[in-house]
């Protein structure tokens, strides 16, 4: 499972972008709200393509939105 290894700032970024709702972000990224919920909670690591789409919604680079924690 992709838990813990990839974290993200989506929740903060949504609030910084005019308190964007999860549904609005989902519509802009082309996924369902359930997927945004799972990503925000760290329950799902999105594909690279989706990660880029989410980052572009916020006008950020992918590493400003997602962080990979190497546990070794």
């Amino acid at each position, binding site marked *: 499972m992709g838990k813990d290894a990839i974290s993200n700032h989506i929740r903060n970024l949504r609030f910084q972008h005019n308190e964007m709702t999860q549904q609005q972000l989902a519509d802009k990224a082309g996924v369902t709200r*359930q997927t945004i919920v799972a990503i925000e909670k760290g329950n799902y690591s999105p594909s690279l393509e989706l990660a880029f789409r989410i980052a572009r919604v916020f006008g950020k680079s992918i590493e400003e939105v997602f962080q990979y924690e190497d546990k070794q």
Partner: protein
Amino acid sequence: MSYQEKKIFVSIISSLLIFTLYTFYAIQNAEEGSITSDTDFRFWGSFLLVLLPVSIVAKVIIHIVFVIINKMATNEDGPSFEDEFDKIIELKADRISLYVFFFGFILSMVPLVTDLPTYLTFLLLIFFGFLSDLLGRIAQFYFYRKGV
């Protein structure tokens, strides 16, 4: 609970209901001795052939009722498409279903090569067919809750 979780929950309950009710109905209407017969398998053939369309039609009706009730209660529309999260969950759940059914299929061959009654083969095939579908749905529900 999200729309997907609610939909799967309804699907689990409807699967249980349809299978249980239909099994009771079929057993009660079976001719005497037809279930345990070692030479006449018409009961098992008709059980499966009728169960499939009955469960498909019943599930479609239950789904329509669910959509209407959910819309009235929450004013929420379900997603009109499946995204990568839905697809990966479906694939993982299908894999679990397949493993369970394959195990049941192998197990159902045992009565054919032993002294056990032949009707156990059909019983095991039907039971594991149902169980594989049920466990697949439960796995989907779990993955939506806990992630993949």
